[in-house]
């Protein structure tokens, strides 16, 4: 009797979650209850990191300092140019009568967990709705786009990576603006670009950036580099594979992007 009841409840939950996406509230509550589990699972990693940070030699620190100073100099030089380029960009955009692209605000978040299931490419980060994170928010690392937020609880949120088999993202080729859709393949090092006709100008080595179509991801962030293009004369579409730019399995600090409203012209 109890068994029948429990199984009925389970079927209800499964269908509600899968077909109607109706369990988001319950998931958020459960996630909140589960937060201590994340902290406990992360503790060994934290301890290891802490130890590694404390036990660096003096020489190593000096070397790091020198390298960072040099890097800083280079970056400062570049950012000087950046100001004038930005002003020029705004002027040109004004000439072309389109709205100005504001710079996006970002917030740094730290990884606290990865999905234990190899079939699911998901991360858990240590920022939640208390920090203003929302479902659908894009996530970057230093090299490119990582994915988007799919679940939010007060302290944590869950991120779907661009390589998950259920994820697709509108992109365009940086070189010539050809638009396409890049889908996750379920393997960490590969995206597949679908439905690009065999005659389209797209080559190995092309950089794919977000196109901003669909209104979810802001335009212009690097997503992947085309690694292979197979053109079969008998088929209407080319088989195109790309390698994600972001370090999907190595990044520990990630950036949450808060897109300025003026940027949502593509909606």
């Amino acid at each position, binding site marked *: 009797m*109890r*068994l029948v009841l*429990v*199984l009925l*409840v*389970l*079927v209800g*939950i*499964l269908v*509600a*979650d*899968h077909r109607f996406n109706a*369990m988001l509230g*319950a*998931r958020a509550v*459960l*996630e909140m*209850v*589960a937060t*201590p*589990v*994340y902290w*406990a*699972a*992360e503790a*060994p*990693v934290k301890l290891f990191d802490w130890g590694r940070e404390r036990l660096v030699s003096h020489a190593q620190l000096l070397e790091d300092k020198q390298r960072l100073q040099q890097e800083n100099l280079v970056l400062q030089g570049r950012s000087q140019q950046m100001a004038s380029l930005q002003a020029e960009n705004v002027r040109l955009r004004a000439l072309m009568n389109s709205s100005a692209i504001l710079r996006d605000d970002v917030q740094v978040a730290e990884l606290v*967990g*990865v*999905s*234990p*299931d*190899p*079939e*699911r490419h*998901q991360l*858990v980060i240590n920022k939640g709705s208390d920090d203003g994170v929302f479902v659908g928010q894009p996530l970057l690392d230093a090299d490119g786009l990582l994915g988007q937020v799919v*679940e939010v609880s007060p302290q944590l949120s*869950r991120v779907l990576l661009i390589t998950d*088999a*259920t994820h697709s993202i509108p992109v365009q080729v940086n070189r010539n603006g050809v638009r396409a859709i890049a889908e996750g393949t*379920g393997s*960490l090092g590969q995206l597949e670009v679908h439905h690009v006709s065999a005659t389209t100008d797209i080559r190995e080595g092309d950089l794919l950036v977000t196109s901003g179509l669909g209104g979810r991801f802001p335009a212009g962030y690097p997503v992947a580099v085309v690694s292979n293009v197979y053109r079969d004369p008998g088929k209407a579409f080319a088989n195109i594979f790309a390698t994600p730019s972001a370090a999907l*399995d190595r990044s520990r600090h990630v950036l949450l992007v808060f897109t300025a409203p003026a940027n949502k012209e593509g909606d």
Partner: protein
Amino acid sequence: MDTRGPQAYWLILVSFFGALVLAILPLPRYLLIWRPEWVALVLIYWSMALPHRVGLLTALCLGLMLDVLEGALLGQNATGLVVVAVLVMLLYQRIRVFNLWQQSGVVFVLVSLNQMVCQWLQQWEGLGSERLLFLLPAAISALIWPVVYFSLRSARRSYRVS
């Protein structure tokens, strides 16, 4: 509150908490497939040792927690664990008198069932691989069962949970 004796629920809770932590502990990618099903193992032990305490509802709550932690479809692991709990509650009198390796065999079958239910629900969701590799955690779980069994039994005896 007495921390020993029949009322020592906290030991059961702590062991489940530990199992959940072990289940999501970050591992390198190539090791993920070798992770034993800690939650299922601990659940099998408690529902075999104390079937009047740990049963369907525990399995349900634990499964839902695991679903949220794994980011799986809500109810996926819960269904698998409920199936496991039901079978243990039907068979616990036999399992108790089995020797350790026979118990391991039973654990292999139970965890395999759990994995198959999860795999089946994942396929329904559109994920999952075609290979039989998802049975590997069941074999690892069966191998590690004696360790789980002896450590939980000695903890249960020293705190006299019943």
